[in-house]
């Protein structure tokens, strides 16, 4: 079963990247990347540092522009039109390694800003939604605190709740646990696992292989801007085909 990942039906793809090339100046950061993500699918993206994982997911919500190829998110073709970018960003949530909570806003204020400005929700609606998601990431009691008053793990859970408040169709995670003290990794991963169980479509850049085994439908391995391997977690961890993937897994396992 490992080798027989049928190519996803493009009609069912929530995210579709075809022939995407990206250069930073003369540096070729993404090399004809093809990636289809179905609704409800959970993807774990891994690979050595500098392989283009962040660049890839940042192209999905247009934090990076591409020079070549086609990216379609929820039926919206990302081009240079501001409307397309706006529409895509409304449907795509993102969680960063460094949390990026707004330091001058309380937890609740962090969560209601975008729903009020972008979705034009009333304050009451936005607060109700925010409290729902803050409770869901089990941080409801901290709603009145400022980010600096929370631990890293708590901040990252708030960041997840903040993204969920926009009720996105897909969530992108860029190494959400890499900046955390080890004892806080679990609370964030548990939150993500909960989200996965609720059926969220997720693209996660992470080296947490336990998480990958538990929730990923597919693991995608990148190196030097290329997707070198796509497999089920089982197949990827048991019998990685590409030599670079084998070397990478060797290193990861040596560290754990």
């Amino acid at each position, binding site marked *: 079963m490992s080798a027989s990942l049928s190519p996803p039906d493009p009609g069912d793809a929530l995210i579709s990247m075809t022939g995407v090339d990206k250069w930073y100046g003369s540096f070729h950061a993404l090399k004809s990347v093809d990636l289809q993500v179905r609704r409800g699918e959970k993807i774990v993206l891994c690979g050595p540092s500098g392989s283009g994982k962040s660049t890839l997911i940042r192209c999905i919500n247009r934090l990076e522009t591409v020079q070549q190829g086609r990216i379609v998110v929820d039926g919206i073709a990302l081009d240079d039109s501001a409307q397309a970018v706006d529409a895509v960003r409304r449907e795509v949530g993102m969680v960063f390694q460094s949390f990026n909570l707004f330091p001058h806003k309380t937890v609740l204020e962090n969560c209601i800003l975008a729903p009020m400005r972008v979705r034009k929700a009333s304050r009451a609606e936005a607060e109700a939604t925010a409290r729902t998601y803050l409770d869901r990431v089990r941080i409801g009691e901290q709603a009145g605190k*400022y980010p600096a*008053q929370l631990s890293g793990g708590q901040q990252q859970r708030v960041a997840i709740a903040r993204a969920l408040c926009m009720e996105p169709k897909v969530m992108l995670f860029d190494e959400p646990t890499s900046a955390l003290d080890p004892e806080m990794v679990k609370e964030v991963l548990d939150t993500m696992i909960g989200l996965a169980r609720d059926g969220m479509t997720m693209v996660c850049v992470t080296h947490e292989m336990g998480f990958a085994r538990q929730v990923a439908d597919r693991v995608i391995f990148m190196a030097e801007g290329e997707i070198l391997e796509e497999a089920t977690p089982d197949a990827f961890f048991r019998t990685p085909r590409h030599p670079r993937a084998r070397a990478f897994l060797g290193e990861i396992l040596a560290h754990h």
Partner: protein
Amino acid sequence: MSYSLDFGPVLAGFPDLLRGCAGTLFLAAAGMVIALAIGIGGVALRSSPVPALRWLVIAFVEVIRNTPFLVQIYFVFFALPLAGLRLPPTPTAIIALGLNGGAYAIEIIRGGVGAVPKGQVEAGLALGLHKRDVFRFVVLRPALRAVFPSLTGQFVMLTLTTSIASAIAAYELTSVAKLIENESFRSFEVYGTITLLYLLISWLVMRLFALMAWRYFSYPVK
């Protein structure tokens, strides 16, 4: 040669001097409001997608920062009537102070914007906020917080610069002092007294800014 002090004229004119202080504070406060608006607006325009607007801001800052304030205030005083706008000295002084302070504020606030981590902007954009909203709701407050001490210094400077508005006879402390001096010839006593009054005014402005910092920028940071 001995000089005998006589504070009589100063004492007699003290109510006028106090009104002069009020005039100075009014010029300063109005100038600061305009300067802050120009500072924030200028920084926003400086990253406008329209090149002409960006160049306009850069040119404005260069012109103001490389010419004397006295010349600027004369320019506004004599140029506005040519453009058909005849204003009394005090509004003229406020405009000149606002333009001058605004140019410096642009440079200071720009530094603050540069100090806000890129991730903050990205988080705002990823949430779907437009660039304008990211500036207004995400970047501005931390940026102002980062440069608030410099901004305070600049606005104390603006307060003291109001003194130059005496050149066009705007109503403020130095103008009042000149009148008393012209009538009494008690130069040392008059200027000694307003030196102390300016010190007091500066201190007051600094306290007000400290209060503002406490009110708006005291959110905890790591």
